[in-house]
């Protein structure tokens, strides 16, 4: 099952989608005002690469389909199949 992470497109979140998309196994598309970050397998997003400070980082996830968060700390956000 495809893992899908939804992130709202606001200025503070664009780097989250951009950094996620650098992973060749991850595709970033759009659904309305949301980025849909999807992959067939486990993936993670490096917080420091996004430049997000903590308030935005810890509130950037809008929705989860087919996956669950297995790491969400100052280093990374990691999604694995449910």
């Amino acid at each position, binding site marked *: 099952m495809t893992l899908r992470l939804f992130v709202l497109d606001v200025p503070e979140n664009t780097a989250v989608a951009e950094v996620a998309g650098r992973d060749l196994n991850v595709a970033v598309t759009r659904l309305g*005002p949301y980025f849909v970050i999807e992959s067939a397998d486990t993936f993670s997003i490096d917080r420091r690469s996004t430049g997000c*400070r903590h308030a935005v980082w810890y509130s950037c*996830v809008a929705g989860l389909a087919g996956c669950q968060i297995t790491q969400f700390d100052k280093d990374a956000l990691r999604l694995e199949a449910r």
Partner: protein
Amino acid sequence: MKDLSKQHLVRGVDHAAFPTFDPAATVRFYRDVLGFPVVHSICAAGWGPENHPDFIHFFFDIGNDDRIAFFYYFGLPQPPSLGKGDVYARFDPNTPDFFVRSRHLAIHVDSERHLLEYRRRLDASEWPVEMQIQHETIESIYTHDPNGYMVEITRALRPVTPQEDLDANLTIDALVDIVDRPGASLDDLLTRKAELIVERAAAWQEQQERLVESPEGPVHA
């Protein structure tokens, strides 16, 4: 006559009221330090079947014609402190600070200059700023008034976008859908919210694009 049944009719905070056991310090804090004008007060003799004390009910303007108000009851002793909290809400010393601080009043200002002016006034007073926090989207200063009530003064670093209103509504709909499940968690909410995004986000976008083309421009959800 115009149908009011679906209209959002309220016009902000008339007043939010709190008890005080130190009205002199409360006046110093709100009127003399922050410069909030006294706009109304009521001197009332106790009445009714209960032994109601005589009291003063007094109001300060917090901008936008909104008001914060206090009750001072003559002769009413202050309840003893349990350790944390304010003169109204008492918590034992083991209560987490995040919970105690979660109830507070946040007052809006329009700019950094205005925020820093209130910081200057507070820092010169008995109630200096305890925290100044800048997130990516807001900046706030915090202190506690003479009654122990937490007061925040905040400014937005950018306007709220229409998609944030949509997102807020999806969050709340998802929360209401899942919160009564046993052991409901943020994971349950985010899973439910993803379903709502799939159901509604594309249609919302199309509606916004139609509104951009119309003379009124986009509207908040």
